[in-house]
């Protein structure tokens, strides 16, 4: 089990990092030939940073569009964020101050994550319009996240695993040193699902996380009359005249 997960984690981390880097590079490389911010839009780069910050941290547009969905999504993402920060303790020799800060929130955050996901899944069946646009991959993605959350919560609250050994495994792995992982089926399942999530991330709708920052309707300044915006391929058309 130890060797299997050592290999699997290395591979899935590689796929995750390389895949994400390739997608981000693709977004960064593809030009935006026209100014298309959804107006009213900020006039300055600082204003754009604030707009993106509000979108990424508060889900501002979603709040305007659908309050209930906003609540479910916010509860899930907030829970996820806390849980992710807290998991840093398995990769750091000494837990940092942020990790220590969220430590007492681990259980409520895990619950929030699972509850948020359950509600998000339920609305895919309950609301007719959302059911119509839901495909198998949308259900599977929620199920995957839910399974990761539930196995994690079970280990945290019911069937404890030896987290000292888990930490030793991961800190060891980061130094290319093999240390044993507890032979615990629940932990195995949890880690397997996490690896699966990392592998599918760059090929799935989870790209919404980096993608938001490349969305031209949100990341452009509203100054087309003041500054001439010209993509390289469009500039070539200019030369042709």
């Amino acid at each position, binding site marked *: 089990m130890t060797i299997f997960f050592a290999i699997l984690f290395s591979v899935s981390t590689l796929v995750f990092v390389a895949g994400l880097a390739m997608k981000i590079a693709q977004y960064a490389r593809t030009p935006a030939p026209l100014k298309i911010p959804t107006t009213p839009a900020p006039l300055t780069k600082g204003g754009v940073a604030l707009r993106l910050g509000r979108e990424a941290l508060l889900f501002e547009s979603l709040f305007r569009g659908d309050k209930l969905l906003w609540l479910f999504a916010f509860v899930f993402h907030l829970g996820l964020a806390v849980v992710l920060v807290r998991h840093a303790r398995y990769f750091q020799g000494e837990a940092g101050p942020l990790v220590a800060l969220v430590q007492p929130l681990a259980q409520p955050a895990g619950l929030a994550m699972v509850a948020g996901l359950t509600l998000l899944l339920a609305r895919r069946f309950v609301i007719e319009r959302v059911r119509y646009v839901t495909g198998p*991959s949308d259900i599977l993605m929620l199920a995957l996240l839910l399974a990761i959350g539930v196995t994690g919560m079970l280990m945290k609250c019911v069937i404890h695993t030896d987290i000292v050994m888990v930490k030793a495994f991961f800190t060891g792995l980061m130094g290319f040193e093999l240390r044993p992982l507890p032979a615990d089926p629940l932990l195995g399942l949890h880690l397997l699902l996490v690896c699966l999530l990392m592998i599918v991330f760059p090929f799935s709708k989870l790209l919404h996380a980096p993608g938001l920052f490349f969305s031209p309707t949100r990341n452009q300044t509203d100054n087309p009359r003041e500054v001439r915006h010209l993509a390289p391929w469009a500039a070539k058309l200019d030369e042709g005249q």
Partner: protein
Amino acid sequence: MAAAPFDIPALGDPAEHPVPALKPGAMAASKPYVAAEAHQQPLGFPGELAEGWEKRAIDHMGGLLSKYRSLQVFMDICVKCGACTDKCHYFLGTGDPKNMPVARADLFRSVYRRYFTPVGKIAPGLVGARDMTREVLDEWYSYFHQCSQCRRCSVFCPYGIDTAEISMAARDIMDSIGQGQKYCNEIIGKVHRIGNNLGLPAPALLDTLEGLEEDILDETGVPVKLPVDVAGAEVLLVTPSADFFAEPHVLGLIGYAKVFHAAGVSWTLSTKASEAGNFGMFIGNYEQMKKISMRIREAARELGVKRIIFGECGHAWRVAYSFLNTLAGPWDFLDSRYPVPQHILEFTSDLIRRKGIRLDKSGNDGMVLTVHDSCNVARGARMGTEPGGQFTIPRAVIAASVPKLVDMHPDTICDKTFCCGGGGGLLTDELIELRVKGASPRMEALKDVVDKQGVTHMAAMCAICKAQFTKILPYYDFDREMVVSVHQLVSNAIVLGDND
């Protein structure tokens, strides 16, 4: 009026946000006429679908994905959350689920996934990936011509996914394989051949404007001019060609002329650039959009004007405000003290603020106004120096011209405004059912203020909105003359003769 061969949506209370139940396939048969070879070839598009079009469509899609970050990012990042599903006026009016923005985008995304993503290539069923087939193309043709590119969905999308970008790309792909839309492509042909969307040749234009000058003189006793091709004028006015003949558009044109007259600013129209609208955007074709824009640059150069001002037109203002500098700039040969281009409402509101013109509200006695924010002005452009000036400036001009102005329900105005139902290249008779049904959210909000606040008229600042409302208001038992140009109100209120 005669009974329509389709149901007119019932109007509810806009505060309750009525959302219809899904009616799958309700609008599957709605589609505009396909462009004939005669409409396609002047634009450089193939005359008809020919063997191997599927591959050419996919190749073209690949090209667009590498040229437009919007398209590439929007294809990848939708999570199908459904926040957009009750935001499109065409969905609200028809109940057809493929008019939900995410479902419309998925018509395109399903093909993208099949040919451009690993999962779509390996396991198409898992992510709803589809081959490019005749059935898919027919669906594209139908439903990408049920999007007016109004961008309302993009306001509420947590990632700003703009279905307008996707429908533009789909239309460009269809043009590139010979499945163009007659209405748009015929009109673009006229712009290139004659100078404007209506196909109004220069002598007819001169004749019309002379007639208007006489009308104004008869009515006011003041010799207000409508100059054309006057070299050395200060301002080049570029306005939608509907302003030259249709009502209420032409009453707005008279308003612009009176404002220029009262302000003592010399101006001219151009026979070469006798059209503000740029249908190149509707068909998502950068080259066409640029070619149409270059007419304005050439006209400004030839006439030696110092400023360019655009008349009331929604999509035209988006192209002008957001794209003109990109497409036809730089504008360093014009007077740098003024933005290029300016909107006529910026010009007029500035004059009102500086007391450069005088308005007498009694000219619009008995009218209670509301204002329809045109979608592409509201969400694709700006006026003035502050974000949201596109909302405050038209309201300031209307408020200065009329005794009373009230707003419609807050979820139907400003950046949440609904499209009139006829924008984005859909203002054609064969789409009348779509246009009537798509107008229902706006009609609902209008009826609300008519019933509760005694509104008598609705001001519009877009040629398409004006034409669309004039046509569809009677379907909802309103008077077609309820819709007025903003500058028609200015025209009724302006005090002429100060400068004489």
